[in-house]
């Protein structure tokens, strides 16, 4: 994209999803239920968060990375 893309910002909906996977890895369906986000948003959101290294995949599930957990605690 022209002038680059901000890959470091976390939207509010992304923070909500990451909060759900701080303690344990969860599937997209579980994240959607707990975060009350639509499933399409969770699937695409988790894909983006993994690419940007805010989350990691564990099989079919996702978990927040250590640096993400530290960041969320700092911003809380």
């Amino acid at each position, binding site marked *: 994209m022209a002038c680059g893309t901000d890959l470091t910002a976390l939207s509010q909906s992304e923070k909500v999803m990451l909060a759900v996977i701080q303690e344990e890895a969860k599937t997209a369906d579980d994240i959607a239920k707990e975060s009350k986000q639509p*499933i*399409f948003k969770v699937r*695409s959101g988790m894909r983006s968060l993994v690419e940007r290294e805010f989350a990691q995949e564990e099989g079919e599930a996702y978990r927040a990375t250590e640096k993400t957990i530290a960041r969320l605690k700092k911003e809380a």
Partner: protein
Amino acid sequence: MTEVQNENVEVRSLPRIGSPAPQFEAKTTHGVLKLEDYKGKWLILFSHPADFTPVCTTEFIGFQKMYPELREMNTELLGLSIDSVHSHIAWVRNIEEKFGVEIEFPVIADLTMDVAHKFGMIMPDESDTETSRAVFVMDPEQVVRAIIYYPSAIGRNMDEIKRLLIALQTADEHKIATPANWTKGERVIVPPAPTQELAAERMNNPEYECKDFYFCTKEIK
């Protein structure tokens, strides 16, 4: 001697009712989305000619107003035009500012026209740089179940799109068909009997009202 020339011609096979929807990955106002992200939900994918145009603005407002109801019917909305994501963002912010309506569904920024071509959303004799007003209704298995095309000057009818969705979901759930102008709560059509024996038997079925063996209706309970 005749010279033979080889020519490669790309033939696009457009989606038809009953066929799997073409998979895609696209930039949207909600980030990069893939069609498979919507598996398990009904999806209404619709295209509009251009951002910051009046008919499209009324349609976006109309789609947003029925979005909460669609979600309660396990259905998502996804818009598309051949505009940049920045244009989409500016336009939906403008709609919120000027009309007081927050557009909550994603809108695909299809600058390469990849999705538009896959779905046959461009009518070259109308415009080859803008999509027409196409609507594709896809079921949770991502099969195309209905297609609507409107010209760029005429806004679509949201009540009809919703009625169509309800009819499709009702037909799937109850294995029936719906008559012309059907709305929820009205009698539905029992599909024709496949054998002579069943055609005779249904004439005595107390749940059916039959004008003839091929024309029976019933209530849905």
